[in-house]
């Protein structure tokens, strides 16, 4: 019997996956028994840019995967592919023009990935516990129950797993501290707050494979000696909350959760806490404050939360992706996990590759892959044939890495060494139409809004940095600004209360480090070479290149493009807001950037 997987992750849903699903169901309803397929709704299949995605798999290893499927394709898929196994080349991924690839695994986006945390996401119906069990689900729990606390800790030590939530703290060490505490009760907390703008891997795991997170928490509980857990899930993640909620119920019914689990004498239960929509609540201690029903402000450290945590009891907090790795480690052994990755960073990492890359989506790769392979081999390079400029990793506390460092092997230590950060795994690819000063200002602005305001260096430091960066972007930058920024950054790093403030200057420092000329252009020449800062730049149409197609003039929201078809168009600098609508779409790349003069015109 064939199985049809319809991706119903957030992106595919936004692209109309539900309609495709119901149409396929209808088309298949009347089929003969021998070809009647099982139809499954899955979580995110990763290749979001090409959604909605439909995979038709036989009982063996073979599959046919279709991309950008529309409602109207359903009938053809049912009649040809499902009933007769015929390929519809039009819906396939194409390596080049006339080479359709049938199977997912031949698609270069998937073929060099290695999936551990995402091992089931996209391949199971998250609402069906049987699907999870069929793929080895809860085997890790069974093994952990046999091994007991010390045995689990040993496997975790062997695995070398480090936390995927940002700091990269060794998971075994955290659990050991928790296990040593004599105070009871102890708590296990799953951090599903995922505040990093541009990252969605934790949401996808919770949505697409909720049981793996619950199983991870159970194993942590065995190691630490806890009977109660909380999953703190971000307010915006409606689908994820629903999916986890359903899974908790199912797990309880099946005896994986609750009292005397699988007759082992061990008991554990978990409940969902809905986040309130504050970035700082992702920080471990602020998150606990929030669960306690207070304002989510970070606490002073020490003591660590694994010693004094929720209601002053020992609390082990782990990130969603960290926990999703744990069942694999227990089932396959810590050694098997440690064979993947680099010396200091074992296993794989999930990245949300977004921005100006061709194939936006979720990818899971072994630690140590180069940025180049990630962005160009898997990601397919830069959209619209433009130039790569930088990749931003690690979210608001991360940094921007330039072209010259694309050979960098991605792991915790390497990224930190070069002024960026692994963070949660957001990877924002930027091309030559992104201004690095403006990007720095964007992050500082974000953090300024999100800083809880409890400590002065973070609250005031960010405000000052935002002010200076805005001045630079608007043409009022001065000599000495960069030095002032660096000085504020140092102070914040040394004195802020929590990691938000201590790392907040990273985007500023890394862009100054690698893109100093761009800052100088803004400060001294009053020019934004990327054409983003509208006070400092204006677009012009190169009359030599323009073929007069007129697309720009229909797209321009400011009606700044003047001219007539088949003749080169012109841009009225007084009206141009450098929004980029024309530049993004110009088929001839005829839009160039010039300095904006005193009176709003070009020089």
């Amino acid at each position, binding site marked *: 019997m064939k199985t049809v997987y319809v991706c119903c992750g*957030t992106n595919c849903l936004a692209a109309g996956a539900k309609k495709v699903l119901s149409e396929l169901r209808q088309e298949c309803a009347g089929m003969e028994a021998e070809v009647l397929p099982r139809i499954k709704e899955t979580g995110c299949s990763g290749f979001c840019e090409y959604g909605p995605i439909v995979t038709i798999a036989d009982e063996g290893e073979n599959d046919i995967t279709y991309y950008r499927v529309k409602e109207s394709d359903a009938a053809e898929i049912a009649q040809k592919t499902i009933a007769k196994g015929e390929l519809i080349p039009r819906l396939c991924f194409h390596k080049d023009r006339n080479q359709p690839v049938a199977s997912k695994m031949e698609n270069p986006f998937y073929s060099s990935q290695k999936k551990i945390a995402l091992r089931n996401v996209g391949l199971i119906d998250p609402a069906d516990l049987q699907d999870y069990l069929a793929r080895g689900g809860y085997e890790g729990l069974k093994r952990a129950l046999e091994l007991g606390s010390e045995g689990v800790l040993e496997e975790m030590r062997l695995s070398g797993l480090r936390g995927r939530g940002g700091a990269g703290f060794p998971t075994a060490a955290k659990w050991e501290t928790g296990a040593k505490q004599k105070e009871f009760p102890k708590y296990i907390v799953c951090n599903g707050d995922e505040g990093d703008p541009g990252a969605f891997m934790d949401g996808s795991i919770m949505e697409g494979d909720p049981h793996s997170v619950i199983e991870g928490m159970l194993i942590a509980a065995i190691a630490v000696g806890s009977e109660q857990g909380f999953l703190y899930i971000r307010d915006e993640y409606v689908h994820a909350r629903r999916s986890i909620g359903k899974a908790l119920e199912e797990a309880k019914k099946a005896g994986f959760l609750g009292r005397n689990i699988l007759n082992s004498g061990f008991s554990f239960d978990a409940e969902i806490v809905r986040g309130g929509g504050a970035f700082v609540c992702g920080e471990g201690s602020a998150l606990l404050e929030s669960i306690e029903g207070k304002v989510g402000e970070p606490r002073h450290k020490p003591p660590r939360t694994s010693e004094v945590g929720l209601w002053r009891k020992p609390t082990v907090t782990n990130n969603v992706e960290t926990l999703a790795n744990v069942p694999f480690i227990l089932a396959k052994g810590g050694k098997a996990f440690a064979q993947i990755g680099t010396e200091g960073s074992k296993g794989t990492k999930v990245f949300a590759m977004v921005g100006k890359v061709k194939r936006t989506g979720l990818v899971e790769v072994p630690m140590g892959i180069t940025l180049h392979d990630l962005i160009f081999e898997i990601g397919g390079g830069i959209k619209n044939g433009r130039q790569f400029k930088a990749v931003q990793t690690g979210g608001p506390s991360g940094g921007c890495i330039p072209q010259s460092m694309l050979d960098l092997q991605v792991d915790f230590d390497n990224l930190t060494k070069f002024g960026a950060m692994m963070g949660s795994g957001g990877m924002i690819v930027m091309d030559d139409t992104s201004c690095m000063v403006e990007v720095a200002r964007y992050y500082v602005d974000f953090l300024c809004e999100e800083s809880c305001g409890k400590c002065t260096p973070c609250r005031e430091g960010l405000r000052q940095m935002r002010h200076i960066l805005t001045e630079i972007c608007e043409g009022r930058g001065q000599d000495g600004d960069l030095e002032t920024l660096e000085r504020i950054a140092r102070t914040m790093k040394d004195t802020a209360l929590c990691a938000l403030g201590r790392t907040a200057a990273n985007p500023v420092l890394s862009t100054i480090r690698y893109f100093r000329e761009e800052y100088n252009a803004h400060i001294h020449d009053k020019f934004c070479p990327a054409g983003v800062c509208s006070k400092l730049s204006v677009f012009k149409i190169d009359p030599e290149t323009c073929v007069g197609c007129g697309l720009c003039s229909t797209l321009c929201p400011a009606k700044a493009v003047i001219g007539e078809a088949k003749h080169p168009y012109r841009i009225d600098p007084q009206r141009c807001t450098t929004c980029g609508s024309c530049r993004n779409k110009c088929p001839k790349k005829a839009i160039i950037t010039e300095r904006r003069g005193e009176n709003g015109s070009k020089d």
Partner: protein
Amino acid sequence: MANQEISGIVMKYPQERRFALAAMQDMQRALSYIPREGLELLAEHLQCPMAELYSMATFYKALSLRPRGKHIIKLCNGTACHIRGSVNLRKCVSEILGIEAGETTPDGLFTLEIVNCLGACASSPVILIDDIFYGDVTAEQVPEILSAYCEKETI
């Protein structure tokens, strides 16, 4: 009516401080804001100072002390959306509706919120209106998208 609804929400929860956020979120959903009576009743129920609940209501973005509009426009300004031009959409929405981020139109129809990442980065820039995602939005499309929500011909 509203008072009954509020007390129904508050009484549903055990008298433990940890349910403060959940109770306020329920109020927010039911009434589109947290009224003063809601804070008072909850403070009494949980035996905690009202000021503490007030500070939560101002701290968490999911909560609001003023009624929000009938339709909530969540305009994503996460990094992916930002570098794909969400700023232009923001200008456009603000111009059409005459409101800035966090504000509600005088007719109570729309509230504009700027949010960080809706988890649909592949379709950036993204606008979420109530439960419906609009992906790869261009400034051009904004008037059309909004007009579908206008009951009266306001645009």
